[in-house]
């Protein structure tokens, strides 16, 4: 029998706060996590700002040995998973009815770069035996499964910046079709380092604006690229039946998931937004909803010239006249682009209006762009009674994913 799926636990690590309360408070305030890079000397790089996670001490919550055996991305994931489990009232599953789908854009790239240097400097005999288990992109999913004895369905879908929204969507489907009662889902990313900055900068994807208080400005006329961020978002999903039985707090119901591919170019979005338009319409159809029922869209909103324009175009195609009544905001204006973790962290941002009746703003918004002419909730949070929200993520490779979430009516 097809199961309804609800969200009952949240864990988040971001540059504006760790834990849902601090994160939501930061979003409402319009806090910015973007600052000059401090984890390494960026002076010879074309971009010297990012949204780094500071004051992160994984050994305090995971123990020294566990923390030592994890790449930073998996440390983020494990700490966020612990928050989500505690928030959802879970200790350990010890069950095949619980699974884990946690992803990342690139996984343990810090470990890869460190060990590559050791290989060249000291030779192959000195490459750590932990290199492979720390680097693999499924390390976070695996470690969470081990920690919580979740022996059921498990994977790590890698679709660049759509990865963790695909992870949540896939986990939703696993519960919906009855393969699990519980799923831990989300994503983590820790890839702020010279080689990624250089790579993204050379593709002209990063903002060259050196002012941390201006660079990430989604939908603004003067946007010129994204700002790299890091962190993790982990959600506890379960069947509604399971959640009701144990009287768990329900943040939202997931009512539809859809995914598509632009099949156009490895990095540039399809200028007509065909696959995105189809995907959102497909999700609405699966949810049995009319476009007019959507109140709020947490956009992908990267702050690149192309994404924000084409994303706006696709929303107009899907929602028609209703597009002008939609509230739309970009979490990336505050925490930068978390790549593979973006979809999950932003899903937690998308729950804010359902929980607190407040929509977070798109900050750093100064000049309207004639091509981006919708309501992006500029600079100040707004109070709003919201029932239905749409979260979208788009990744290099043309990957698209979206979720429709709804307030729990009970």
């Amino acid at each position, binding site marked *: 029998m097809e199961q309804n799926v609800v969200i009952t636990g949240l864990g988040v690590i971001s540059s504006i706060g760790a834990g849902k309360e601090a994160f939501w408070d930061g979003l409402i305030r319009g806090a910015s996590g973007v600052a000059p890079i401090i984890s390494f000397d960026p002076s010879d790089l074309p971009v010297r700002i990012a949204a780094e996670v500071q004051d992160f001490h994984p050994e305090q919550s995971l123990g020294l*040995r566990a923390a*030592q055996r994890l790449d930073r991305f998996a440390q983020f994931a494990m700490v966020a998973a612990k928050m989500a489990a505690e928030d959802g009232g879970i200790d350990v599953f010890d069950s095949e009815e619980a699974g884990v789908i946690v992803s990342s854009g690139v996984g343990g790239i810090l470990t890869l770069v460190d060990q590559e240097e050791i290989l060249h400097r000291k030779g192959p005999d000195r490459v750590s*035996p932990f290199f492979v288990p720390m680097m693999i992109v499924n390390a976070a999913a695996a470690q969470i499964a081990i920690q919580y004895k979740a022996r059921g369905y498990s994977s790590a879908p890698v679709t660049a910046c759509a990865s963790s929204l695909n992870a949540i969507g896939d986990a939703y489907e696993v519960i919906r079709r009855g393969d699990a009662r519980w799923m831990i889902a989300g994503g983590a990313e820790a890839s702020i380092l010279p080689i990624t900055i250089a790579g993204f900068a050379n593709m002209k994807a990063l903002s060259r604006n050196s002012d941390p208080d201006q660079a990430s400005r989604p939908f603004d006329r003067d946007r010129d690229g994204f700002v790299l961020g890091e962190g993790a978002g982990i959600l506890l999903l379960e069947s509604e039946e399971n959640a009701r039985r144990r009287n768990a707090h329900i943040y939202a119901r997931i009512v539809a998931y859809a995914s598509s591919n632009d099949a156009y170019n490895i990095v540039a979005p399809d200028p007509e937004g065909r696959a995105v338009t189809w995907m959102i319409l497909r999700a609405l159809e699966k949810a049995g909803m009319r476009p007019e029922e959507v109140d709020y869209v947490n956009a992908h909103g990267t702050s690149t010239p192309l994404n924000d324009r084409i994303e706006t175009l696709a929303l107009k195609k899907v929602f028609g006249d209703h597009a002008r009544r939609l509230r739309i905001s970009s979490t990336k204006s505050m925490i930068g682009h978390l790549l593979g973790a973006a979809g999950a962290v932003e899903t937690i941002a998308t729950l804010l209006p359902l929980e607190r009746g407040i929509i977070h703003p798109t900050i750093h918004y100064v000049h309207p762009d004639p091509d981006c002419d919708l309501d992006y909730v500029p600079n100040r949070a707004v109070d709003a009674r919201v029932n239905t929200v749409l979260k979208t993520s788009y990744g290099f490779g043309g990957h698209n994913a979206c979720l429709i979430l709804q307030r729990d009516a009970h």
Partner: protein
Amino acid sequence: MNDQEFYDRLKKVVSARLAVPEEQIRLESRYAEDLGADSLTVVDLAMALEEEFQCKIFDSDLDQIKTVADTLAYLRSHLSA
């Protein structure tokens, strides 16, 4: 280098690689049972010891090194050789 200095250096490496406080490490401590090391941790420890003591620990010898005392004896005999 006297025995105490040698032992202290060994303990420092074991403590760092196994993430165990030095106070918990004794001569008779077994890596797997007492200090919670898995097979990769033992390989990692051997590599760190090779660096610290500028020696070679052969993979085929790892099976004989079960305790801190075994390690001390192994290093002693291979360093003086």
